[in-house]
């Protein structure tokens, strides 16, 4: 499997240079010890630094062979992620019963008023 120019390889650049220094007192800490140039501030991010990606890099990954087909266990929703007509009645929250009984036909143009959340400006 040829993966030349793949994002995985692009990421494997080189390690961030670092060095170890023994400190005898807190005052010996440099002012900027916690910051990564162009990156995040370690001390404010629990568990380490944040991972940032530029738009151009993310777009490069779009054509990776891994993105050609959906994840095998992605939810199958008829009419959206699976073939078939759109079927999400669930109007009264009674999922299974309503799904069986009323296939979506006349219930579509029922609620066209107002947005999902009230727009009280």
């Amino acid at each position, binding site marked *: *499997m040829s*993966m030349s120019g793949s*994002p*995985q390889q692009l*990421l494997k650049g080189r390690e961030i240079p670092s060095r170890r220094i023994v400190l005898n007192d807190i005052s010996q800490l440099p002012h900027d010890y916690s910051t990564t140039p162009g990156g*995040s501030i370690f001390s*404010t991010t629990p568990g380490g630094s*944040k*991972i*940032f*990606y*530029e*738009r151009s*890099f*993310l*777009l490069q*990954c*779009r054509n*990776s062979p*891994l*993105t*050609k*087909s*959906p*994840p095998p*266990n*992605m*939810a199958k*929703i008829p*009419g*959206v*992620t699976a073939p078939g007509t*759109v079927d*999400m009645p*669930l*109007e*009264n*929250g*009674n*999922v299974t019963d309503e799904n069986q009984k009323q296939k979506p036909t006349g219930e579509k143009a029922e*609620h*066209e*008023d*107002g*947005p*999902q*959340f*009230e*727009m*009280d*400006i």
Partner: protein
Amino acid sequence: MAASSVSEIGSINATDSRMMGSPQLPRSKLSEIHSTEQTGVPLNTPWTFWLDKSIPGTSAAQYEATLRKLYTVNTVQGFWAVYNNIPGVDMLNVRYTYHLMRDERRPIWEDVNNCHGGNWRLKCNKVDSPTVWKELLLAAIGEQLSDNMAEGDEVGGMSISVRERDDIIQIWNKQSNLHEQATIIPKVKELLPKVNFTAVFYKAFQTHQAFEGQKKLT
């Protein structure tokens, strides 16, 4: 000289045909593919794609029942594997909403990760929706918006709702009391200079009349 190159070609062909003879990939190759899928390029946090169909006037519980989790992605490749293989925003029927939420938090005001937050709402012309949605998702998963949030706050998710006229974009944050320090709206306009956003405002979830408090849902 000629003879030696002929024999070289001959030996290469022999190897080729031996490899082509088997229709199956060797075990090592299969596990390599598997591990590539597992690893990919890691995202800063997982993100979950959700879909819902909105019905006005429903309770939080009823709304929750219309919610469908599509998939949680951990890698950039995983993100595209979902994005590339679900209908674009322009293909969704009216009243459907896509959400991309950080981690596995649900796109519900009362969710423990949202109940102290709120969201910015913007409207945009349907023509712009696919571009707007893609750019906002990339900015979110690339954490390009974190500098535009106050310290202690974060973008918790993005939503796009398909409506009759203009589509509605929502940017969720975690701490409504910090929203005034955020510079997210100028950032969005900077990312999408050609798009005309209308009806831009922020609202804390707890100030909605329909807010049911944190404890109603677990």
